[in-house]
């Protein structure tokens, strides 16, 4: 039981970090950014390249990944999302195609084979019979730090409040003097940076591979659909529901069914409460 609680907490923290950037774009930019997984993949590979292949300090690798992720977010907004504004289906398709292109680029640069990231912090500790790496502990702590910082930023700064306003009513925010375009740009950059940061931890917990972007997108979509639009707390709680659900299914039932109940949860919430468990109703 203790193993389930520990592993559930660790996995959930990671899921929350991964989903946070996706939730921001979905809530504020109103875009189902299916290329979000590409930030995660690129973040992992940039960290791998900087810290493991050319031997730079890990902190430089991490910051490099975040910066590249943020730039990718900005470029995507400028080059794809803005020109296609008003056509959500075209944006979704374009972002999905972009993710596939990024996957091919990664194959070209790094090859098809999976790669393993060295732990950011090496070592293992046994807690109540569960083997816990310092790496995943650090990932969980960092997740919480980043999530709390994001929460403070959105609640406590002018830009953050403007992001909230745009998320609720873009036209109303514009009338109040907020520049939605600028806010969207900032949001895409933050989302890209968060995705890349999540990618470093996700890759160090699992693996690097050109197809690694798919699973985090599915997790993010699940968390945001079940949690609802515009709720950091909701994202956090649902990340824990899904994280624990997966661990429990693997530990007491069958590993092959790991993702099945998450999918059932999505369907259930879509039918029973389309706005999500913690989301506001859209009009």
């Amino acid at each position, binding site marked *: 039981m203790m193993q389930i609680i520990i592993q559930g907490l660790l*996995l959930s923290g990671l899921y929350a970090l991964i989903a946070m950037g996706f939730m921001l774009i979905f809530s504020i930019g109103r875009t189902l950014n299916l290329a979000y997984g590409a930030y995660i993949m690129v973040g992992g590979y940039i960290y791998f390249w900087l810290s493991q292949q050319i031997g730079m300090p890990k902190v430089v690798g991490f910051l490099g990944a975040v910066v590249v992720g943020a730039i990718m977010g900005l470029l995507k907004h400028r080059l794809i999302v803005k020109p296609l504004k008003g056509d959500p289906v075209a944006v979704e398709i374009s972002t999905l195609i972009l993710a596939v292109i990024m996957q091919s680029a990664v194959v070209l640069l790094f090859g098809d*084979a*999976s790669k393993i990231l060295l732990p950011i912090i090496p070592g*293992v500790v046994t807690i109540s*019979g569960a*083997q816990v*790496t310092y790496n995943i502990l650090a990932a969980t702590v960092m997740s919480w730090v980043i999530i709390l910082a994001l929460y403070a930023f959105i609640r406590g700064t002018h830009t953050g409040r403007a992001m909230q306003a745009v998320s609720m009513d873009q036209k109303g925010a514009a009338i109040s003097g907020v520049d939605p375009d600028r806010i969207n740009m900032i949001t895409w950059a933050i989302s890209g940076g968060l995705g890349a940061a999540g990618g470093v931890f996700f890759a160090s917990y699992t693996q690097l591979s050109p197809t690694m972007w798919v699973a985090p997108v599915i997790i993010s979509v699940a968390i945001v659909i079940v949690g609802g639009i515009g709720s950091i707390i909701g994202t956090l709680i649902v990340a824990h529901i899904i994280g624990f659900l997966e661990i429990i299914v693997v*530990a007491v039932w069958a590993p092959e069914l790991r993702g099945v109940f998450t999918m059932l949860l999505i369907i259930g919430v879509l039918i029973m409460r389309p706005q999500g468990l913690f989301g506001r109703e859209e009009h």
Partner: protein
Amino acid sequence: MTFKYGIATTVAATLMATTAMAEIKVGFIGSLSSDTGLSTLRGAEMAIDELNAAGGVMGEQITLVSADTGEDVTEGVKAYEYLAESEEVDFIISGSIDDVSLGWLPRMQEFQIPTLDTWTSYIGIIDMVVEDPDLMAPYFMNIASDEALATLYINFGADVLKAKMGWESVVILAEDTAFGEAITGLVTDALGPVAGIEVKEIINYDIGTVDFAPIFSKAQASGADFIYQVSSVNSQVISSQYVKLQVPMAMTGVNVSALGLEYWEDTGGAGGGISTLSPIPSVGFELDPVSAQFVTDYQARYDSRPKMPHFNGFNAYHGLKQAMAAAAEAGGFGDVKAWNAAMLKQDLKLEKDGKLWLRYGFWQHGEVEEVTQRTYPQNALFDLTAPYEDAQPSMVVIQWKEDGSVGVVYPFEYANTEFEVPSWVK
């Protein structure tokens, strides 16, 4: 996955461009981006180059076209159709994984193109040969089938895991693939009765699994003495997480990623202690002079991964030459039965220090293997009984050490290091 109809012809291109002579067209089917696929492709390229340099086969030069499967079953079927219908190849050499081979096999039966599988080891295909030799006449598999691999691995269980390490129970972690199912079934059936090792639990996992922490916890909870893993896809993930988590149980089994020289780099050095069954020749396996020369030539020619060909690269190199020799004897590939009969006669013996070290030949129809008491027609020859005087063993067990070195631990006749548990396993 993208289906690439890319023509990867690298064989004597200049010569071919200036010569109007007839040609023998060879098709490669496999992944063009995996170490497995590239090993077969490159082995075939080298064999073709050598044959062409020596004047070709029956006075004809050999060309090579390739079709990428991307290790996807659907793409594999399309790739086979492309080689058969669009390229109209005479012979196909395959570096496909088991599931992909099973996908295109009905196409091979339909088109009746002589085909040599260098990686797939699924015993079910050999069963098809037994059941319908005419329909399966074009098919040869020059890797020992998985039943032979598993049978010898059971001996490792008895001789080392039970007798030397004192382990009496196992938990099996198996990926959900045709290969995983086949190996798990074979091991489960034999570990208890032959090696005296009880199978406590079988845990199957999806090949997309990237988080093994709860699975290892479940394995520990089974109370077994060691873990037997069966992994042919994304194997470095389970290995590296085993090392990173320092799972306090020994783990051995089948780990395909550990068969390549890149394993250490791919796992970021988190791969020590992992042991795996490996077809021959493997990394850490001492080579005879002919095989050593092949590796030297390979490394002089290719500077990208895989730095050393996997076993199927050797199989492709020798197997393609044997297929061409059979064609020369049978008057080409057109008469499949004649080619089949000539192919069955192929027999290449490689010696090391005066001892038979490797043998590239095939089991005949009706020839019974004495340990398993069954037949393996058109499957690579192997020997399941020490001291392996008839052929090489069906497999060896190799182990990566925590310092990054690798060696053979079983059978003892081929061993150059000892099996040991990782330092964190008490």
